């Protein structure tokens, strides 16, 4: 597999056409399988075939059970400068319920250790787990703050159809998700992280100034990216492509010097819809000037008309910033009250 990843990196070196790589993200299950040398090989291949900026953000995603003492040590000597750790919870029963491989102690130990070597650490935390009292959620957050993390990605537990959790809930062995509880946790999360100096810059992401995920922010701002590996997505302005999900099909194709990917060309409407969807999730919102400039007056009018009822209900608001030239820019943003309903709102603003 690693060989295939390296080969794909080489195969696609022309794709960025000299654009500078600003961030590298090693995620999606692979990093825990990578040996130290393999990691080095991957990063070396990137550097060899692409032009990388002077101070790139290089994130590695890992679970606490992968981050042994030795591993963290090795990582600190690599080019990786940001760790994303899938903590999920600092409590044993939650971890069991979510079928996690690590336990509560491992979560704390690894975070303690990692924060000695890394300044830029983000952790995942899950809330809205049935039976999780507000108290316990509060404690989870306090523990995280205690380790001095500068970034938190926090997700409400969602039950995807046909997963183990879904079956448990249907069978009655697990309590169904309580949306009001999740909302309560979310509101607390937003307030408490703000007190700690975090900025809620995307629905699920909280970072102190200077610690936002540059990589993820690029996704929401429509920057181009190259995704390597099975089922990885790539994006270039109006073209999105994705590799086959099947591992062996992927490896086989790459061995034959072929990129097993499917591409779609996004129409103006697709791009508009994506901008609405991602914009409403972030503090940068949906710029009315950009709507008019990039998509045209009809799109802007459509968005304004469709947002009317949400503006009235206080789920959306129009705020006004000054740009670098002190020119006012108006943008549509989701209010605190609207955030938990943002999918439905975005869908209503879509153009079909």
């Amino acid at each position, binding site marked *: 597999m690693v060989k295939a990843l390296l080969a794909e990196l080489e195969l696609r070196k022309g794709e960025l056409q000299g654009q500078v790589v600003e961030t590298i993200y090693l995620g999606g299950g692979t990093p825990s399988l990578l040996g130290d040398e393999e990691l080095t090989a991957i990063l070396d291949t990137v550097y060899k075939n692409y032009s990388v900026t002077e101070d790139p953000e290089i994130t590695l995603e890992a679970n606490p059970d992968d981050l042994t003492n030795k591993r963290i040590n090795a990582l600190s000597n690599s080019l990786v400068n940001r760790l994303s750790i899938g903590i999920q919870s600092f409590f044993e029963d939650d971890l069991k319920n979510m079928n996690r491989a690590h336990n509560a102690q491992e979560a704390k130990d690894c975070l303690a250790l990692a924060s000695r070597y890394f300044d830029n650490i983000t952790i995942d935390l899950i809330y809205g787990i049935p039976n999780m009292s507000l108290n316990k959620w509060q404690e989870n957050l306090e523990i995280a703050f205690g380790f001095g993390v500068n970034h938190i990605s926090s997700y409400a537990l969602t039950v995807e159809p046909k997963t183990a959790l879904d079956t448990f809930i249907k069978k009655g062995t697990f309590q169904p998700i309580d949306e009001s509880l999740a909302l309560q946790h979310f509101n607390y999360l937003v307030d408490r992280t703000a007190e700690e100096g975090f900025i809620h810059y995307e629905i699920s992401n909280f970072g102190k100034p200077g610690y936002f995920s540059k990589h993820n922010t690029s996704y929401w701002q429509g920057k181009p990216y190259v*995704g390597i590996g099975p089922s990885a997505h790539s994006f270039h302005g109006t073209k*999105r492509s994705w590799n086959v999900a099947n591992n062996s099909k992927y490896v086989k194709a790459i061995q034959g010097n072929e990129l097993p990917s499917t591409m779609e060309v996004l129409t103006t409407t*697709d791009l508009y819809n*994506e901008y609405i*969807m991602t914009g409403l999730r972030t503090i940068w919102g949906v710029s009315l000037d950009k709507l008019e400039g990039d998509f045209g007056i009809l799109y802007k009018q459509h968005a304004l008309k469709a947002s009317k009822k949400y503006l009235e209900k206080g789920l959306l608001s129009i705020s006004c910033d000054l740009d670098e030239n002190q020119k006012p820019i108006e943008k549509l943003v989701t209010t605190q009250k609207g*955030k938990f309903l943002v999918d*439905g709102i*975005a*869908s*209503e603003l879509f153009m079909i």
Partner: protein
Amino acid sequence: MNYICKLSQGINSFMKNIRNFCIIAHIDHGKSTLADRLLDFTGSVTDREKQDQLLDNMDLERERGITIKSHAIQMEYTHKGEQYILNLIDTPGHVDFSYEVSRSIAACEGALLIVDAAQSIQAQTISNLYLALENDLEIIPILNKVDLPSANPEEVTDDIVDLLGCDPEEVIHASGKTGFGVDNILEAVIERIPAPKGNPDEPLQALIFDSVYNPFRGVETYFRVINGSIKKNQEIKFIATGKNYYADEVGTLKLKQFPRQEIKAGDVGYVITGIKEAKEVKVGDTITDAKNPTKNAVSGFEDVKPMVFAGIYPVDTEDYEELRASMEKLQLNDASLIFSPESSAALGFGFRCGFLGMLHMEIIQERLEREFDMTVITTVPNVSYHAFTKKDPDEIIIVNNPSDLPDPSGLDRVEEPYIKATIITKADFVGNVMSLCIEKRGMITNQTYLTTDRVELNFDMPLAEIVFDFYDRLKTVSKGYASFDYHPIGMKSSKLVRVDILLNAQPVDALSALIHADNAQYIGKRMCEKLKELIPRQQFDIPIQAAIGAKIISRETIKALRKDVTAKCYGGDISRKRKLLEKQKKGKKRMRQVGNVEIPQQAFMAVLKLND
């Protein structure tokens, strides 16, 4: 003397070489495919014209693989050195169109009875066979699809022999797929089906068995001349409607129309008279000469009566006029659709429509969407009831709409239409089918073992029960091994109540349904549950109640939506999520705002599928 004799001989020899036949079968047993093969084999289509299901020329027919309209075509075939004219009529298989089938049958002397060699005899095989026998048709049994690995030729031949009392040798083995046996079929058509009888010298008497709307030329009327002949420019009269026309063009139906000067007794053809509305051409009506009319209309004419009624409303109230125009256009080529304006407190202005049955209703709805780009809401369908009030117990009040039912306090009695249902199933499923029919208020009248494994069951049942979720459940309880057919047998007294639905404490008239009193409690409960499933959650709680009069019989609540947000939205999630939200938005286009609740289109039909 001599001269006359010669002449009639000449005419006889013309009729002698005509064969008029139809294809009858249970749905999917292969009528249309076999018709294609007959056309190929007789060279009636060129290679360029060839395509599957050639006669099913409506998009909907091709896509769904069903025949909705009858189709007629003339073929020529030389047999033993003599040239024959073969007029073939492909008929719809579905019970909704059984009247049309009966008129096509009446236009023929023979029928190819097709039986699928894997499926054997099914309900419509039998009902269509009876229709053919009533009309004294020569039946040519055909064992079709013998190429199928699952074909069961011996057993199915036995079934056919049992059914018809014919000789096993008379059953022709064939495959519409491979073309096997087509020559034998053509030979049998010529040798076994009698030539038409009729007198070309009598006044014109022709049976209308179909009509097709042509936007440029008006209605094309398809007929079979029984006696006399029809000539270009002749003044003709349609007996049932009493209207006179000039035959601007007459001709025979090849793949394209083929104008002629005259169509004589025994033959099949079309006439164009400049009629602009399908309504004026009634299937089953008789065409005669306007000046020298026949004394006898062809028997069997009926004004087709709609069996099922439902409201059709535009999703967007502004589209009412456009919907009217579309319905009018649709009616031009489907005379069996009837409609009149009605209004609903919940849905505004729309139409109460009458359909031949549930398939017909579906077809109309679908044609409105694809041919006219109209998104519509169809309300809960109901049959036509007769209500009588205490004040005037002899006067029939026709109830085609739940809101027409008189107030229970003044109601004397209600009658509902009954049907005789024929169900053929495997012996294993008899118990299940019986339970279903009894649950549906059916009374078993007959049970016959066709073979040791196949049973024919007859029930008297309220038609209303067929409308409500019958086909799907029959399929389920019989694992697909049941076929079904019915015909109306009149009105019987009934205990009927109107179940109303309230959303947010507001009655939504378009969701009201007429239901037998004994089932009302249960159906009211299921309706609430079903609506809870179908109406998307909104930002507030929505109580759903079912009520009979002022009495609430059931209640559910759609909980407010508190969380509607995707946790992760990175890389590949973005396009996945966009597509999902786009789909959601499309779905919303089909929703109707009633009060402050958005109701999806399909919720209005929810009561039909309470068991899904």
